[in-house]
Each structure stands twice: as C-alpha cells, then as structure tokens.
C-alpha cells in the first residue's frame, strides 16, 4: 500500500454567523499514497472536525460538486492527486464566487447564466415522437460533442480574469453551452442565441486569456467555444442579421 505520509492542510474557514472574515485552520492528516485532495477533506470531516463544510458526491470527476482552490489553483478535488503537492497544502473556496461557508460557494448566479443561453433544442416545429429520432451523422455529432462535456464544476469561472473584474460576465461554461446548441444539427435556435451573445458582458467581453481551457478538468476547451461564438456573431452581423453592440472591439 506504500507509505502513509503526514501532511498539513491549511483550510479556509468562514461561517457568516460567527466570522467577520475568512480565517484559516490547520489540520494534520495521515495521507495514503493514492489519495486525492478530497480524501483528505473527508478524513478531516469524519475524524478531526465535523464542522468543516464542503460539497462532494460522485468522487469520480463527473458530478462537478467538489471544485475548490488548491494551493491557489482551481481544481476538481476528487481528481486532484495529493502526491503532487508538498507537505503543506492550502485549500480554499473557488475564487471569483461569493462564499456561503467554508469551502462552499454561491452558485445561483451561475445557474442563471446557464439558463440565459437557452440551453435546449429550439426548433420551429417539434418532431413527433412517433416519427422516431432525428438523424445526425457522426461528423455532425463531432461538431459539438466536445462542448457538451461540461460538468458545471465552475473551475473556469474561478480561473477567468474577466469574471474576476466583471462578475456578471456570462463566462466560459455558459457560452460554451450556448455554442454547443448552436452547433447541434438538430437545433434551429442559433439566431436567438447569437442575439444573446452580441449583448454586453458576453462573448465580446472575453479577453482570450485561455485560462478556462487550461483549468478545465474535462477538456471542454471553452476558450475555443467563446472564440467561435464571437466569429458566428460577426458572421451574422455581416449577413445583416444582427448588429454588434456592447463590448465589440
């Protein structure tokens, strides 16, 4: 099983009922060699301090609950191996979000952003179930497949320099999701979504820092989605369908 190694975890704590500001608390944890960051947090919760609050569930990198800041970087903690870190590991809530408590961040705003891009199939006329599935070639599926892989872990928002300055920025995951539907051969809603994308605080606010793509644990490449979405809005504009406005440069 290899050697157990003691590490110190410096964990950000904050209870709005008791603390004026976030503070840190140190825990010594005997770390097993195969552990992820989340395993250490669960050890703290179960064996040392039941008052620590963090979100987690699937522990297999698909439910998207356990995004946190590890040594200052946004990480999916159930996927993040501890052996890459030294004897002291700092864990805090994801940056760029209000904190509810300890490592738990406010995500209602993110949900609103997701909804605002109309992330559902829009068709002029719905096909009846009796008529069977719509056809879609493997190539058509490949057009959007990558952008459908987002697990809503919000690491990209924590990494995004635009979100840091402009909390209302629609942001990488929501834009990638809207773009995913625009690219889906079954969808006819691109004009509606491009209307949204040309607004303030959306695609043209992106500074293309590419941080979102670098931190994405599912290789969604939201930066590419944002860039493609920009281009599509401009093409619509060139066709005279919409006028660019907002932060267009």
């Amino acid at each position, binding site marked *: 099983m290899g050697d157990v190694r003691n590490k110190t975890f410096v964990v950000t704590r904050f209870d709005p009922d008791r603390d004026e500001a976030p503070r840190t608390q140190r825990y010594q944890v005997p770390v097993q060699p195969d552990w992820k960051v989340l395993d250490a947090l669960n050890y703290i919760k179960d064996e040392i301090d039941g008052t620590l609050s963090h979100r987690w*569930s699937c522990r297999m990198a*698909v*439910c*998207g609950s356990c995004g946190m800041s590890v040594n200052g970087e946004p990480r999916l903690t159930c996927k993040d191996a501890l052996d890459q870190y030294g004897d002291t590991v700092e864990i805090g809530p994801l940056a760029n979000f209000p904190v509810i408590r300890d490592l738990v961040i406010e995500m209602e705003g993110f949900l609103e952003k997701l909804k605002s891009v109309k992330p559902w199939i829009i068709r002029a006329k719905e096909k009846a*179930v009796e008529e*069977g599935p*719509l056809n879609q070639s493997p190539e058509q*599926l490949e057009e959007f497949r990558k952008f459908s892989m987002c697990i809503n872990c919000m690491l990209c928002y924590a990494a995004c320099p635009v979100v840091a300055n402009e909390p209302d920025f629609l942001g990488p995951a929501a834009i990638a999701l809207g773009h995913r*539907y625009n690219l889906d051969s079954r969808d006819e809603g691109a004009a509606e979504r491009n209307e949204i994308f040309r607004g303030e605080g959306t695609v043209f606010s992106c500074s293309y820092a590419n941080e979102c793509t670098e931190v994405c644990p599912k290789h969604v490449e939201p930066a590419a989605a944002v860039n493609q979405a920009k281009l599509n809005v401009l093409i619509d504009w060139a066709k005279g369908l919409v006028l660019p406005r907002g932060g267009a440069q």
Partner: protein
Amino acid sequence: MTDILRHDLVIVGGGAAGLRAAIAAVEADPSISVALVSKVYPMRSHTVSAEGGAAAVAREDDSLEMHGYDTVKGSDFLGDQDVIQYFVEQAPRELTRLEHWGCPWSRNEDGTVATRAFGGMTTKRTWYAADKVGFHMLHALFQHSLQFDRIVRYNEQFVTKLLVDGGAVRGVTALDVRTGAVRAVLGRAVILATGGAGKIFPFTTNGNIKTGDGMALAYCAGVPLKDMEFVQYHPTGLPGTGILITEATRGEGGHVKNSEGERFLVTRDYGVGTKAELGPRDMISRAIVQEIQAGRGFEGSFGAFVHLDLTHLGEARIDKQLPMVRELAKIYAGVDPVYEPIPIRPVVHYMMGGVDTDIDGATSISGLYAAGETACVSLNGANRLGSNSLTECLVFGARAGEHAVGFARGTGECNESALRSQTEEEAGRIAALRGKKGGGEKISQIRREMNDAMESGCGVYRNASDMASGVQALAKLQDRLADLAIEDSSLVFNTELVAALELVNMMDVARTVAGAAQLRDESRGAHTRDDFAARDDQNFLHHSLCHFDAAGAGPRIDKKAVTLGHWEPEERKY
C-alpha cells in the same frame, strides 16, 4: 413564523426520474406549479455517474417481446409482467424523446442512433453516448427543463418528513441547507425520486448522496418497502474506491480473466452459457467471488480482484467508445486499459427494491408517488439487467408525473394549520439536533459499523447465521443513533447535520434489507444463499414488503403476489 411554500406538485429529487416527472407534469398541465426539491443541484444527482447506456428496442432484429423476455428472465421471474410489458413498449418512445431534447446519442454511419450489447440482453438494444450516458441524459433533461418557468427549483433543500393529513400526503418539510430554516413545501401530490441507497454498504459505486432518503421518508410514513433484499453487485468496480467500470466494456468485447489469464466465464460453468462476459450481473459477480475464493484472484492492497482486459480492443476503439473508462482507470487505478488489464471486483451498485408502487407510481398513501431507483414498481425483480434502469427513470418518471398531475387536479384544499403545526414540530426536532452533545457517538463511527454489518450480513453470498448477526448489529446501531453527537451548531450549510439525518435514513433502509434477506430461504437473482442454493417458486415466488414499526422493533415483513400471466417462470439458464 414557519415559512410555507405552496405548489401543486412537489417532486423530491432532481435526477433522471425527478426531472422527467417534472417535465411530464408541466406538459400534461401547463398551468401546474411544480416544486423540484433536491438536496443537491439537479446536475449533481447520481444519474450523472451512469455510464454504459439505456435500453430500448431499436433494431429490426429485435422485438418488444424479446426485450420483455430478457427482462423477466433477468429478474429471475420476480418482475411484475404487466410492468415489464408497459416498460418495453414505452422505452423506445422515451429514448426518442430524449434524442429530440438534445441528448448526444452515439450514431451509426447513416446517422441513426447506435446501439451496443449489454449483459443479459439478446441483441444490441442499449443506446449510448460513448460511456457517459447518465451524464448526458441528466444534463439533457436538466437543460431542457430550464425552459419551463412552472418548474421551480429548490436546490440544496433536504426533505426531512412527508406531511400527511387525513390519510393523504400534502407536502414535505425541507431543511434549507444554506440558511438552516425548516419550511413546508405544500403540494396536492408528492413524487419521491431520490435514487438508491448504496451508501449503506462500505464498498459501492454510489456517490455520497445515495443515502436512501426517499425510501426512508415513505417507509416512516407507513408505505412499505418492497423487495429490499435484492441488492445488485456490479461485477466490475475498481478496488479501493468502488468506482464503476461500465458493463459496456464487456459489451464492446472486453474479457474478464483470473490470475491464470483464463476467461473463466467461457471455460467454466457459471450458468451464463455462451453469453460469457455478457451474462447478467448477479451471475458474473458470483463467478468472480468464486474464482477469488478458489485462489485464482490477484491480491492487492484493497483485497482480492480479477482482471478486466480491454487491451485487444485497441486504443482507437477504447477512445471512441470508452473514453471515460480509460480516464477513470488511469486516474483512480493507475492503469491505462489500452496497455494493461483493469483490476476489478464486484461492488454494490443498485437497489432492486424500494418504495412499493403500482404501475402508475402510486403508493399506499393517497397522493404519494415514487419513481426511479427509489421506487420498486417491480420492473427489475430479483436482478436488474444493465441499461434498463436509466430507461426506467424516464418511463416511470413520466408516468408518475402524469398521474400525479391527474391526482392533484382532483384534490381539494388542505388543512394548512395542521400542516403548519407539523412543520413547527419538525423544525423543533431539527433545531434540537444542531450542536447536540448526545452521548458522544460519532457519525463516522456508526456509519462504518453499519457498513460492516451490511457487508458481512448481506454480501454476494449470504447465510442464516451471518444475516442474523447483521440484523442484531443493526438493531443495536439504531439504538445508538439516539446518542449521536453533532459538533456543528451553525445554521449555515451545516453538512454534519445533513450527514446525521442521512445516517438515520440509511439505518432504516439497512434494517429492511437485512430483515427481508433473512426471511428469504432461497436463492433468486441477486439474493444468493449458501444454505438455500436453489430457487423455490413453491414458497418464495412473491415480493416481500417491509412495514415500519414506530416502536423501533425493526421491519414487520409480509408478502405480495407477483403479477405473472405472459411468461411462465422457468429455470434461469443462459
């Protein structure tokens, strides 16, 4: 003053069954107001972890009759045959609907939906989106649901009790995890869709949230839990973590091998016949345990295991069809399945049992419905076939949603003052738990002991004496819950309080599993007895029902007839 929220329909749980029910409800009646109450955000629901696919007849060489027969045989003839027939008829419609809603199903070259082979299924009828089917289905459902303003989401609200008045359910009480407030969410009908209870076991594919909450809610309100003794062990979980490696690995042609490199499902007689690795889950799990007991397993730091070998499939096929398996094996087992076999062992995966419902999802309490893994509509009987459960969430989620709407329409006003006082009482109970010193019992300690009792008493192979020890241990553990200490006294996001409430739920559910198992002196499906090796239709071709005993004496258990009529029970041999 207690906060009261008023809706027409309350759905507890935001996974595939809950979301499908919500959409069906607002489509059936656009004026209806639906509260979708979940202890997490819907996209965190455990549906997300399902991997391999969803079953529905799609090919010309297939038929509803064949899907039905495979399912009833897989169930070891404990599935209700009217339910199975309805299920197979509706399955293609539901998966088509999901296609129209944007689910990125994998495709054949001609653009039609692709299907793959799965265990116990005669032909390729499992629809898939690579190996992230639950993830894609859940997100497609969730995103589709966002367009309906009549679906009001209450995220991170833990339901603590069903509000029942005059014999009818009238809503729920919910702890708002972020504020600590306990509120009433009233509705004319309630649907439970909270998923399974794998966390009663130590080694499970299930996420942390799968604590049997809906089962416990219904049970404590007087609805029986049905067929709880049938717990599915998935043959292929990663040692240590229990992370699921999908059956689609075998559907795509993967081999299971022992330490001698032998494909024992081919070379030895484990009842799976020519199906080999594509036998049903109960049989393959037993085969693996027997191989290990015969000394033909590998020893590892997390116990013995065997190999799942995909190396002959090649990198291109693995990356196209099984990308998540490759990722999971690399991250959580340190092996790349393109080059090395994956270590695997059987792992608790799915509860065939659950809240006793009829084919409409209705329970014995007026206005209370259940669907998905929480429910036992009796599709799966003693053993579920892989890829039937995602489809089950859709078929019976939709049906429960439609029927609950019909029921809600015909229901009169409730006695709000009675419900308000029930809610205040519940708020008082929850308040007393926060920061409770108790007798100093630790949540993690009792949970561990419960897990151990379940593993030793209700494993792949069971016997009378181990089960009796398990039953006794659980009774003692349930008594110790009264002494539970909860360090955290904060109102805000008190996850320790939630964990305590979940543990109380799990203990009730665990006792029904162990109690029902103890009474079934036969081997059927996933319930395998060392001491009663054969199926006994004479005495046990019936469902078991566990009734709650308020005095704490553990479940009172009786029987319910199985609906037969279309397929004659026969020896289950492949």
